[in-house]
């Protein structure tokens, strides 16, 4: 039987409190209770990656994530929150300039995966994006965007050190 669950999370940098049904998926809570429509349901079974979010820094599929098991204090980052991160604007502008955005439906999940790849620079771009399906671009522009942003960010870091 479903019971109401109350949680305090940090979503996109903000402390929030939310009440939902114990059986709800994180994707439902984000979309229906928090009004965050960036994460999309492309397949509902963890194949397409359109619902990707970061949970405590880990890349996760919100359609396979039971919301109730995420305890108070959990940090969640969705596509909407990326703009306010250090790498966010660079990623978004580079993706658009490179033609990595077409129909846009996979894009929020893809941006989350790309952001995660900035935090994990050793994972090859093609491998890191392989959980996110895109039917428009053929992936090259997406992979190029990750590589280009990594180069720029690495360059900046080197600059800071000298």
């Amino acid at each position, binding site marked *: 039987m479903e019971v109401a669950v109350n949680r305090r999370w940090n979503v996109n940098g903000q402390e929030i409190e939310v009440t939902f049904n114990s059986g709800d998926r994180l994707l439902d809570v984000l*979309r229906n209770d928090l009004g*965050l*429509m*960036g*994460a*999309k*349901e*492309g*397949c*509902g*079974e963890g*194949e*397409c990656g*359109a619902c990707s979010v970061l949970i405590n820094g880990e890349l996760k599929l919100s359609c396979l994530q039971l919301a109730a098991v995420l305890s108070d204090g959990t940090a969640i980052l*969705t*596509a*909407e929150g*990326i*703009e306010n991160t250090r790498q966010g604007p660079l*990623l*978004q*502008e580079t*993706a*658009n*300039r*490179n*033609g990595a*955005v*077409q*129909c*846009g*439906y*996979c*894009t*929020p999940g893809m*941006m989350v995966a790309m952001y995660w790849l900035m935090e994990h620079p050793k994972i090859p*771009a*093609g*491998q890191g*994006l*392989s*959980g*996110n*399906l*895109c*039917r*428009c*671009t*053929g*992936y*090259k*522009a*997406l*992979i190029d965007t990750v590589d280009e942003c990594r180069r720029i960010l690495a360059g900046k870091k080197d600059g800071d050190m000298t």
Partner: protein
Amino acid sequence: MRNWCGEPVPRVDGLDKARGRTVYLGDQSLDGALFGVLVRSPVAKGRLKKIYWDESIDWSGLFRVEAEDIPGQNCVSIIKKDMPCLAFDKIMYLGEPVALVASADLGLARSAALTAKQDIEPEKPLLDIRQAVEKYRQEPQSDGLIHSIDIERGDVQNALASSDLIVDGEYWTGPQEHVYLEPQVVAAIPRGDKIEILGSMQCPYYVRPAVALALGMPDENIIVRQTPTGGAFGGKEDFPSSIAIHAALLAQKAHAPVKIIFDRQEDISFTTKRHPSCVKLKAGVKADGTFSALEAEVLLDGGAYTTLSPVVLSRAAIHACGPYRWRDVGVKARTLRTNMPPYGAFRGFGAPQVHFAIESHVDEIAARLDMDPVELRKKNLLREGDQTATGQVLKESVSAVACLESVSRAADYAAFKKKLEHVQSTRHKKYGLGVASFWHGGGFTGAGEEHIAAEVAIDLMEGGRVQVAISSTEMGQGERTTIPQIAAQALGGIPLDLVSCDLPDTSNAPDSGPTVASRTIMMVGALVESCCMDVLAYLKKVSKTRDDEQIADWPDAVGRALKGRPKIRFAKKYEKPPDLKWNEERHVGDAYAAYAWGAVAARVSIDMLTMETTVDDIWCTVDAGKAINPKIVEGQVQGGLVQALGYALFENLQVSEQGAFLQNRLQNYIVPTSMDTPGLHVELIENMYSRGPFGAKGVGELPMNGLAPAIRNALRQALGQAPNRIPMIPENLVEQGLAGNTGG
């Protein structure tokens, strides 16, 4: 003043999409909206006698619609009116809609729909293209035909008889699912005596008359607005009309907005797919490799109803001879009826199927002649002044040879061939490099553009703002960016941010035709360019600017034209160029105003233990005329190539004995991921088309056409024998007897 055509400007909708801010219909909450669900037939063929509902459940707040409730005509009108909105009496495929249920609670609507018991007398269905082909060959005049097209040029039988060499072949292709990332979604909102339709779609002016006919309302009382569309590829060409009618029927019954959203399984199971095909070729060739005669039998599985199959068949028939010169041609093209969900539009529209056949066949001819496949192609490719199978004289913008030369140079074809024998003999892996040439007619076939008679409008507004009003949709292909580039340039190079092109709304945008057939830039863009020239001439007059001068102050000139009004509108309608001639019945004449051209090479390896094929590199050169936005054109080519990669190697749909697709989820319908993306080396040749906007032709479908046969030809080189069926999944290669030879 700036030259916008040729600039890779970032797309206008890109940043919002990247920021997760674009609101798709599924993200939009509609006040008081109900969810609509479809009740579907449990058998592929039969007689539906009655639907029994469980009256013991609480039906308050629930609404249902059956065929008898339809106020207008019970059909989804497109080319023919043979497909009902809701089946009555005859069931033609498994999952055919028979009734509708709506509720504010989606779960409740689904449970109520499940209570429907259908009293059906089942009949034996015809489910498979193989059975359909067998039946057709036994009795070609049977009632199993949806459409027939014959193309005859010269005397093919005589020419075959006098050829030095005759090469036969038969090629099969499977269905392909679009997998647009956003599943089908539509909403209907009652607005007084009108109904507003919102939806993810390609063709608002297909939806409008279809809904009007079924609801028994005048066209102008149906207002259709496209919502941001998460991919389409042809899958949202005709299909949205059908669920728009369903939503409108429920909305009318419930006096409330109704949204219908498919989940992925429903979407893959019951929406349109690429037509499966069987193409039989008999080619007559001279000893020196000159092509002389081609006989082709093109058979497509059309599924249960006509939908778009006649025009898909027409494009297939015309492209069946490939981009080659044949003196004598006989094409017999047929769409066969089966008890499967209707097959429909998919990027390429009949052309990828026949390209798989003809481009595989050219390599078979090369093998028989012991000629190099690239040299054989070069000898026979169409050139300016040549005639196509329909007798069309190609007057301009022909680049078949240039594309092939570019690709063979880029792939270092000659060097690879030399290296190959040495590499093959030492590994359990085999390698191959295959090529294919391809072409694609831009715009509607034959008299299609004349029938559509596209209209565009340009609105001038305060501050010098310019709005392009067209019914062409943005579905990821970049229309909202490229069309303004054309307009800004045609208006004398005004700042691009003054020009916009919004998602269409039929209460504002004229009917510029459907967003299909690679026609948006080539046909609609040309009209926009021409309309802008009228605007410019008028503004020069009111601002007293000489013809050879630029307008010095654009907002001021627009202000003078407005004279205080909020906007003024200029319009332009398509006029058929007088030199284009077409005979639909005989399929003779100028089939397309212009063709885009391409060539592709694929370097593949195959693991002889698992029979798994890996494509390492793809080189592709296309000529689509002027690339208005080269970044967007390149994106179309790269994306199309990877879709074609899936078509060739992974995307497998099998049909159960009951008539269901076995691969109806993304867990088992496998599309390429970033790990499957090979090196993609794309080059553009710009061979201008005189009537295109700034020389542009269409590019959207072109890259879908050539890759599957190029991979097949690479496998032929690797294995010494060839698969003649796609998808070339390991199971199919084994079944065709291609496994077991590890070569070492």
